């Protein structure tokens, strides 16, 4: 395996959790709900995924545990913001703080435990193709899932009637209610999908990326995912591009630091954030298109009158 190939492999591994969490949040925001608790749900997914894999001995059951933890945690957010119309921003921030604390408590006994890594899944035949073979078809299973998820969400949002209904709720929940669409029900499902995705992203961190449990191991990736959704103007392919750009610059600057180019390391460490924001802002400078894709009722509480 050449050095370029191994760098590309690590880029994909760094980008996958961002992509999954951001795609989940994209669906939530398209339904008009702003869940700032991505970081909290992600870290819960990471700790529960690690615990599940260690206790049962099966990394696959760990992945399921991570997904379930994220979805269950998001249900708390859904109840507070949708059923009793609490402020979404405040609730999301509390969810993050709660998740960081709770995960530290759950994970206390697992600190220092050897991890149980989810092994790569080489697709027979295809992974032997020169150059791109290992890159595209010799990855961990969650990588494939993240790509399928992106395509699936695109298809769902823009090609199905249910996806259209979901987008309409995000555009104007009052109109949707007037037409008889069950706004709250759709939003519950969307929020839980977002939670499940964040949980899966967290499980990827503790079972694939760095197979161990460290407190606060999400290290702000939930926030990056949130920013990606906005800067990608709520479009799945742009989220994919943004996630991989972020992954690439992250890995690139690590190698640059190792080479000792004499550039301050703090500057290099900030590069991924800077590059991602700049590029996504440039590609979304068409204000009309951005406006068309922005969910107009994002973050506004909805109380139906009956």
């Amino acid at each position, binding site marked *: 395996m050449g050095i370029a190939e191994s760098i590309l492999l690590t880029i994909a591994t760094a980008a996958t959790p961002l992509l999954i969490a951001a795609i989940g949040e994209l669906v939530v925001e398209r339904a008009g709900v702003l869940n700032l608790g991505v970081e909290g749900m992600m870290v819960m997914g990471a700790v529960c995924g690690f615990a599940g894999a260690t206790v049962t001995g099966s990394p696959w059951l760990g992945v399921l545990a991570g997904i379930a933890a994220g979805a269950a945690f998001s249900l708390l957010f859904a109840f507070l913001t949708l059923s009793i119309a609490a402020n979404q921003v405040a609730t999301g921030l509390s969810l993050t703080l709660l998740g960081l604390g709770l995960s530290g408590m759950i994970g206390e006994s697992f600190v220092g435990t050897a991890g149980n890594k989810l092994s790569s899944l080489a697709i027979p035949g295809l992974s032997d193709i020169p150059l791109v073979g290992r890159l595209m078809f010799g990855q961990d299973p969650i990588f494939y899932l993240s790509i399928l998820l992106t395509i699936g969400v695109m298809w769902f949002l823009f090609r199905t*009637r249910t996806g259209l209904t979901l987008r*309409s709720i995000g555009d104007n929940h009052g109109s*949707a209610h*007037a037409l*008889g669409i069950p706004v709250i029900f759709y939003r519950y499902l969307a929020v839980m999908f977002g939670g499940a995705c964040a949980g899966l992203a967290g499980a990827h961190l503790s079972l694939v990326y760095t197979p161990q449990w460290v407190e606060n191991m999400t290290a702000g990736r939930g926030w990056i995912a949130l920013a990606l959704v906005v800067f990608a103007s709520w479009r799945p392919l742009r989220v994919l591009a943004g996630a991989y750009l972020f992954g690439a610059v992250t890995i690139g600057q690590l190698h640059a630091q190792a080479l000792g180019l004499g550039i301050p390391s703090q500057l290099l460490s900030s590069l991924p954030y800077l590059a991602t924001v700049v590029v996504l802002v440039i590609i979304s400078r068409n204000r009309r298109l951005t*406006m068309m894709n922005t969910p107009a009722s994002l973050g506004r509480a909805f109380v139906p009158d009956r």
Partner: protein
Amino acid sequence: MNSQPDGRPANLLEVRGLTKIFGTLKACDDVDLTIGKGEIHALLGENGAGKSTLVKMLFGSLEPYSGQIRWNGEPVAISSPSVARRLGLGMVFQHFSLFEALSAAENIALSLDDDTPIGTIAAKARALSYSYGLPLDPYAMVGDLSVGERQRIEIIRCLLQAPDLIILDEPTSVLTPQEADRLFETLERLREEGKSILYISHRLEEVKRLCDKATVMRHGRVVGHCDPRNETAASLARMMVGNEVQRVVRMPAEDMQDAEKLLEIRDLSRRPATPFSTPLNGICLDVRAGEVIGVAGVAGNGQGEFFEAVSGEVLQPAAGTIRLRGKDAGRLNITGRRLLGAAFVPEERLGHGAAPRLPLSENLLLSRHATDGKAFVGAAGLLRTGAIDRAAQRIVGVMDVRKSGHDPEAAALSGGNLQKFLIGRELDRRPAVLVVNQPTWGVDAGAAARIRQSLIELARGGSAVLVISQDLDELFEISDAIAVMHNGELSRPLAIAEATREKIGLLMGGAEPRHLHQAAETA
């Protein structure tokens, strides 16, 4: 005709004793309503009479507190809009229930309960819209369409479901006279096809022209059923309001040619602030001392942007674009323009014209802290609450504002009474220039007459008054000349003697919108 066994004609819809209570307010109180087949039935009443609440219950968006609804003789419980649609009820909403970021066809798809592909829906919608003479481009984004075109989408969406009863909530309030005529033709054709229509309006002439029966509501109760063709507009108005409505008197204006130009607008242009707002293009207008100039136009043609530019909410690049009493004001903010003697009343009452949770006296100070600084603010910036309170009570007295308590919150007043206070707040200063946007929108007839009369009196006292309104009746009642805004451009003002509804209507319609031509070409 469809008959029951005992020979009585079957009624399509019968409502008995329908009641809806919000908190302590009985929005609908023991309402009865009967609609026959093939009938256009008018539901009349002032704002707040309970019309919208009633039809929302019929369409399943609101749950009745008590009462019974019978459909084709069978008792039914309409628990949601989709139940209503399955029964055969269709609704065209007053405040459109459309999604701006979606196309017309997608909007239509959302109200259909089956899974018809968008392409099929688009083709059907296009065919239906042309057959009724309401051309529609199914792939246009709703955010780009005029209000009249949006209403077409609502109507086509409703017709596609082939309903037996169509409810139209104030459909003509946003249309040009010509667009309204086309709507009436469509409705008459639907009646010939045997459909029933429940037509909500407070425009009495069109009700007399179109409707077979009428039910009149006041304060949540039904106060009468009648045949509108046998009534006069005045007798219908009396039923709606409960007493005679005062007529607005427009004193003849003297020759204006030599009067001083108090407000001059020179080549005012503005780029659109958001993708959905209208740019302004080379607007010129003079308003002289002693006259009322009306600006007509269908909503969304740049009136809001125009008001913002004139009032100083948005500054102009060139100071000479707006001149007040001969001084350049284009670079001055609202306070600066007020200090030159101008006063402004915006369209939105709560949140723009008044702070909802502040009492009236403090709302008075919000627009007059600078111009009446000496009277209201004392040494060291302390408020003279006594003087402010006396001024607020003076306005309440002059404008006949009905309120509960001495100094209630702005939000506690009804729309009409708050609007009387907000207009009175500016009139109390005797401004040299008054600019008002939608002075009587959502205001009951009595309050509207009071407001219109006071605008005329202000002008005749030597001020320049500019009124932006979508209500043509209002503009004809109070203006000395009417200019029409269309697509961000303003026509030359027509003196009231030469202005006819037809001329104004044609100007309001402008040329056919560009994208409809494109739609016709691709069709």
